[in-house]
C-alpha cells in the first residue's frame, strides 16, 4: 500500500504524538515540540517506503525533538519560576503529571521505554522498533523502569 496523504497520517497520529510529548517535555513545551515534529515528518515524508510503520517513525522524530529541547534548555539559564519543582509535588495542581515528573529521575533509556509504552501506548513490537532493540529487550527495559519508578515514588 502507498503511504497515505499526509493529512490522513496527521489525523490518525496527532493524539498519540501530543500525549507522548506532553509526558516527555511537559504541557508548556509540548505544542512547540509537536510543530517541530510534524514539520520534520512532512519534509521527509515523500521518501518513506510504502508499508512503513508510521507511528513508530513519527514517535522517533518526536523523541529526537524532545531531546533537542532538553539540550537547548540546559544551555540557557532558566528564570527561577521555571525550575522544576523539587521535591516532586504530591498533587498536580498546575496540570503537570506527578508520575511523569517522577519518571524524570530515571535513567534516560528506561524513561524512553516508559514513554513509548505508556504515553504513546505502543505495543511492544513498536516500542522495540522505536528504541531500535529487540522486543524482548524492550519488555525488559519497561519492567525494569516500572520497578525503579516505584522506588522513586516511595
Amino acid at each position: 500500500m502507498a503511504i497515505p496523504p499526509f493529512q490522513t497520517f496527521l489525523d490518525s497520529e496527532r493524539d498519540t504524538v501530543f500525549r507522548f510529548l506532553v509526558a516527555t517535555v511537559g504541557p508548556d513545551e509540548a505544542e512547540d515540540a509537536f510543530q517541530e515534529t510534524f514539520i520534520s515528518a512532512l519534509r521527509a515524508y515523500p521518501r518513506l517506503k510504502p508499508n512503513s510503520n508510521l507511528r513508530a517513525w513519527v514517535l522517533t522524530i518526536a523523541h529526537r525533538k524532545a531531546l533537542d529541547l532538553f539540550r537547548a534548555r540546559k544551555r540557557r539559564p532558566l528564570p527561577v519560576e521555571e525550575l522544576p519543582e523539587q521535591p516532586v509535588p504530591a498533587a498536580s495542581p498546575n496540570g503537570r503529571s506527578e508520575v511523569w515528573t517522577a519518571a524524570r529521575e530515571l535513567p534516560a533509556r528506561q524513561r524512553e521505554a516508559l514513554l513509548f509504552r505508556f504515553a504513546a501506548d505502543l505495543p511492544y513490537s513498536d516500542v522495540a522498533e522505536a528504541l531500535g532493540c529487540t522486543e524482548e529487550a524492550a519488555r525488559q527495559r519497561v519492567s525494569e523502569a516500572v520497578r525503579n519508578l516505584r522506588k522513586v515514588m516511595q
Partner: protein
Amino acid sequence: MNELEKMLRGDVPASPDEARAAAERFAARAADEGLADVAYALVDSPLGRLLVAQTKRGLVELAYGGEEPDSMLAELSEKLSPRVLEAPGKLDDVRRQLDEYFGGRRTDFDVPIDWSLSRGFTQRVLQATAKVPFGQLATYRDMATKAGNERAVRAAGNALGSNHIPIVVPCHRIIRTGGALGGYTGGLERKEYLLQLEGVLL
C-alpha cells in the same frame, strides 16, 4: 505493578481537543511556509460538499462528494505528492469566488489552474471548455474540433467526463448536437441546477 501502569497511562494531561488544535495550527503554518504540495479545503455548496484542492501552480481539483473525501485524497496523494494538507486559509480566494458564483454575483472565475491531472487531447478539450462563457452552450463536437480532431466526438465526451475541475472548467455548458443535455459526472440534476443558475434552462 498494575496501579502504577494505570497511572502512567492515565495521568497525561493532554486532551484530544488540544491535539486537534495543534494539528490545525501545524497544517496552516506548513501551508504558509510552502511545505504542502497539495492544500485542500472542504467547502459547502448548494450542490453538496466540495473538495477543493490546489498546488503551487493553481487549482487542481474541485470534486463533488466532499462528504467522503478519502479516496479522492488518496488519488491526489498518489498522482501529485503525498504532502497533502487541509489548509482552508490557502483556498480563501477560490472559496469566495464559488460563494459569489452560487449567489448569482459572479459569472467567471479568476483563478490559476493546474492542468497536470489531464494530458494530450483530454487536456486540450478541457482547456477549450474553460473558454465557454457563462450562460452559453457548446457541443461535444465543438470541443472536439477546438481540440484538433472534429471526428473525436466520443473522446471529447470522455474527456469532459474526466474533468477534475467541474464548475470552474464549465463542462456543464457542453451538450449534445441537437440539444440533448448529455451526461454529467456529478449527476444530471447537478448539470440542470448549474444551467438554471446561469439562466440557460428554465
